[in-house]
């Protein structure tokens, strides 16, 4: 068996293990985002949204849905990798990978694919839930899937880097709580940045999540605060940077080798 065959089988094994992990604890991994989505749609879309006029020509509930789906994708792809890889460090079974002929690229690819699988699964569940409140049909379905996957890849890489450095469970939750959640909430889930004062609009442009949410919203509604090419450019640049950092950390053995 040649090198590439070994890597391919190892990759499939790692992905299977990751998917099995989050499916085994689906009550913790899949259900909460669905419940959260229902609450957001009822409270913001249903109760508050009825008092808000249209945004960019769409009912507020319809405007809200892409952002809520994307929020589930972002938090779950990040959370899956950070908890899975940190758990493997904590229980030391990351050593199973380190002593096996699995390349660092394959390890990273396996964990990231696991994160994408959970992010996309949650995205599908939240999308299904949203049909209870809206009857949206995506304008550009292929684009929708593409942006969802690329965003998942980006945040899975972020979760991996977080897990490499984390020494405690607290350190796994600092970034999601104090960085990811504010960026996501301020990234245009609930509003168009055109509704903000000029300074806030300019500051919002430094928030990478804005580009993902608007790209995704464009794929569903056909409207966006940001040109589509800029969304792809930002996602692409972040993926390239995070991938390089994550692979370098793995090659150095940071956090996993003495």
């Amino acid at each position, binding site marked *: *068996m040649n*090198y590439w*065959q*070994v*890597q*391919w*089988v*190892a990759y*499939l*094994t*790692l992905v*299977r*293990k990751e998917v*099995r992990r989050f499916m*085994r604890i689906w009550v913790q991994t899949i259900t909460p985002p669905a419940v959260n989505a229902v609450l957001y749609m009822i409270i913001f879309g249903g109760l508050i949204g009825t008092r808000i006029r249209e945004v960019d020509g769409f009912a507020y509930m319809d405007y809200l849905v892409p952002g809520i789906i994307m929020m589930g994708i972002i938090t779950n792809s990040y959370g899956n990798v950070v908890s899975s890889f940190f*758990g*493997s460090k904590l*229980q*030391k*079974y990351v*050593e*199973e*990978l*380190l*002593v*096996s*002929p*699995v*390349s660092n690229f394959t390890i990273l690819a396996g964990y990231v694919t696991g994160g994408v699988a959970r992010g996309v699964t949650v995205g599908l569940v939240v999308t299904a839930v949203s049909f209870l409140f809206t009857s949206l049909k995506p304008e550009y379905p292929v684009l929708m899937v593409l942006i969802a996957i690329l965003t998942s890849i980006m945040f899975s890489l972020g979760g991996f880097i977080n897990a490499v450095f984390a020494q405690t469970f607290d350190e796994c939750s600092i970034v999601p709580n104090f960085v990811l959640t504010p960026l996501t909430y301020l990234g245009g889930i609930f509003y168009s940045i055109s509704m903000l004062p000029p300074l806030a609009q300019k500051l919002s442009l430094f928030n990478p999540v804005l580009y993902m949410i608007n790209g995704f919203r464009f794929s569903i509604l056909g409207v966006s605060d940001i040109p589509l090419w800029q969304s792809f450019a930002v996602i692409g640049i972040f993926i390239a940077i995070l991938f390089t950092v994550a692979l370098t950390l793995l090659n150095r*053995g940071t956090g996993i*080798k*003495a």
Partner: protein
Amino acid sequence: MQALSIQNLTKTYDQDVQALRGINLDVAEGDFFALLGPNGAGKSTAIGIISSLVNKTSGSVQVFEHDLDKEPERIKASIGLVPQEFNFNSFDTVLNIVTNIAGYNGIGMRESRRRAEHYLTRLDLWEKRNTAARALSGGMKRRLMIARALVHEPRLLILDEPTAGVDIEIRRSMWEYLSSINSEEGITIMLTTHYLEEAEALCKNVAIIDHGDIIERGAVSELLSRSMQETFVLDIQDALHELPQVQPFLIRTCKDPLQIEVEVPKGHKINDLFDGLSSLGIAVNSMRNKSNRLEEFFVRLVNQSGGREELDTSVLQGTPAENGKNNTAT
């Protein structure tokens, strides 16, 4: 061919802690080799480097003539590791833990399952295949780690204290199994253990490491032949009022008044001891080795090498270990 060849291997951890100070070690293919040493001697660091869990500071490691720096994947594919600590996902099932490792080694699902069944059956774990690892007993967890290490059929199996905390029955069945895979399947085995009777019973060759240096190495039989004395515990008929003196034997009392401890220097017949005791009217009911011979040799060697001195050849000539609590007479 050498299964393992280590040259000038050093490891310095943070704060200048030197775990390995330039060790050289060769393990021949097919050998059953013991790496012995007290806690903190550098055994696990050496094993960690060989199995890619620890980054070396300098030196070279070759496994079946593949260099660790140039062909790490080929080395990993030829090594099976049973580490000291349990390092599997305790929430995963026994079967998944074993088949995952097979998968990481490029073995497809069907073949992974076949091999998992083979090794789990041989190690008496197949009935537990759908049990979460956390529900296994300590002995079962040890056996699971051996099955996991063997599933990709490595040529070199490294076991870091594989029988720690395992009851004697399971330990002996594990010895039997390890001996069989060494002799029948030709798997080279490198073992660390604190049970020196284990090393004496299983291993052909041994190296002793202390303070990051290899202080002795050779065939077990050769090292034992250099051991200059054996200590026996004798059960005597009646309690003694004073210690007998039988030259050239060193006799000590034990806590039990109906036992004495005797050091028999190499080259002297134990019959002479019995004759001497008999002439003093001391009847001996039975006798046994106080500890196994390798253990005595090891303790003496490590005591002598304490600190950073090079091994003195006088160590090999056998200086009796003194026990301050005992009364001694020669």
